[in-house]
């Protein structure tokens, strides 16, 4: 998994403990250029700790965090990096244009204020004081501050929290454009559709460990379960007892059956009810795959 393209950020065997809490417990992670890596996981899974280590905000107890081949605490390496953190209250009395100008001054070859605003879609907000903006507008300004330095690597921690659907899709488009230009992105998110829409790779963290890493498709494939919907005269209680069925429920007119052997299940359904209709077989969504992966530590296969 290494050696293809440029490694921008890397965690190697990283452990980090806060008192009794083992926040990261032996994590390996590589991010290459032009790639968007989504970090998924429930609260307390270690996502923010992982980002904090890569930004030099924290020191690992064991293992190594590297940024562009060096120590993340070296300011010369952080000049390649743009950051949008989960909660940072920017000075409310400063205007948006002033905030961009200030953040851009930290970088060697920043974008102009106008270009930054155009990418983030905030041209109309430049003259407004930050404190007078709505939550979603403030997030877009924070995104602008992350990209104003022409970074080669962007860290986006829950970037679309508090945004409406339109603003969220606008931000997704901007992120895709930056990735298209060769920018690497590390994204943490609660919104699975966000990872599905953007990510080349998804890395699922739970209890300080990586429980799954791979493409969105690979993540889904790790979960063997498929869902089968159909309208049938067969009673729910009877179908639920079949060996082929892992879970059964009724959704309106249809039965919804979760199974690891969809072919066998469909054959049996059609055999027992020739009048069966509205048949649909689908792979689990990322949301379901994700719930599955983080649910039960004992039954999980070892992290790849």
């Amino acid at each position, binding site marked *: 998994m290494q050696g293809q393209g*440029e*490694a921008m950020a890397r965690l190697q065997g990283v452990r980090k403990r806060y008192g009794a809490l083992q926040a990261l417990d032996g994590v390996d992670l590589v991010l290459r*250029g*032009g790639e968007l890596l989504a970090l998924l996981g429930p609260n307390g899974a270690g996502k923010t700790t992982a980002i904090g280590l890569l*930004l*030099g*905000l924290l020191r690992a107890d064991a293992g190594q965090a*590297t940024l*562009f*081949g*060096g*120590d993340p605490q*070296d*300011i*010369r*390496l*952080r*000049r*390649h*990096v743009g*950051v949008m*953190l*989960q*909660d*940072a*209250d*920017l*000075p409310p*009395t*400063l205007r948006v244009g*002033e*905030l961009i*100008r*200030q*953040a851009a*001054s*930290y*970088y*060697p070859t920043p*974008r102009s204020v106008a*270009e930054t605003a155009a990418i983030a879609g905030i041209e109309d907000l430049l003259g407004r*004081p930050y404190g007078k903006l709505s939550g979603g507008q403030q997030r877009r300004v924070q995104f602008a501050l992350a990209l104003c*330095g*022409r970074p*080669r690597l962007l*860290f986006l921690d829950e970037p679309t929290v508090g945004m409406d659907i339109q603003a969220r899709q606008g931000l997704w488009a901007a992120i895709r454009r930056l990735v298209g*230009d*060769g920018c690497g992105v590390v994204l943490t998110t609660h919104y699975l559709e966000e990872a599905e829409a953007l990510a080349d790779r998804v890395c699922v963290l739970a209890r300080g460990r990586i429980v799954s890493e791979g493409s969105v498709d690979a993540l889904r494939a790790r979960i063997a379960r498929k869902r089968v919907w159909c309208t049938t005269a067969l009673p729910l209680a009877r179908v639920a007892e079949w060996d082929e069925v892992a879970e059964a429920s009724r959704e309106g007119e249809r039965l919804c059956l979760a199974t690891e052997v969809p072919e066998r299940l469909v054959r049996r359904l059609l055999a027992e009810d020739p009048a069966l209709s509205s048949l649909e077989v689908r792979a689990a969504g990322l949301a379901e795959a994700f719930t599955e992966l983080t649910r039960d530590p004992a039954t999980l296969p070892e992290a790849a």
Partner: protein
Amino acid sequence: MTPHRLDLSVLSERPAYAEMPRRRVLRAYLEEARGEVLRYLRSPGFLLPTILFPVVFYVMFGILMGGKRGGLDIAAYLLASYTSFGVMAPGLFGFGVSLALERDNGLLVLKRALPMPPAAYLLGKMAMAMVVAAAIVSLLLLLATQAAGVVLSAAQVARLFAVGVLGVLPFSAMGLLLGTLVRGQGAPALINMLYLPMAFLSGLWFPLKGTLLDIAWIWPSYHLNQLAQDAVGMPSRGATVAHVLALGGFALGFLLLAARRLRRHG
């Protein structure tokens, strides 16, 4: 935007350092200071009490109730002591309260994650405190010379101005230390609990006698006040050099303690 360049730095195991010309680093310092100054000049909740307290006190006690008492020129004495009282506030509150808030609301973490030159944060706040201190001294000087009848030479004016603008620095360092001890909204209360008694015990409101006078040297504001009194030609105790050294020592001590705490606790 940027054409994708082939970067082989990883193969050579050498970190891909992004150097920055000195001129641009200097610009980062200036932009940070500009932002800090602008943001507080637009924040009446900070600016009004900081500037109005010493000015209103001076109008009441220096002008309306002033005059000469026991051979002491009250208006000149209070010009010096309210200058000391006034410039303590932007240091203590500008640094202390804002650091305590920004440690709490994520701004300090963001600034540490961004490639901001590490000293820019402190220098920016220092510039802000010095600008506000300059405004306070200027207003007091204006009132004293135009309304209270205090007669000062140009050299005395310049000296008091310098005492005020530089005198804010040890209190900035003290505010910095206090800001590392408390988080968030608790800071103003803690700082007021120190600010007001310290001003009183250093003889900023009326001359000290006895034991209080003997132990007043433990307060940085006492030394600042002696320098201010001396600047306007009022009687002062102790050598100028000793007061300057004492203030420098306080500034350095607070700064080192604050830096240690920030490194340990963030």
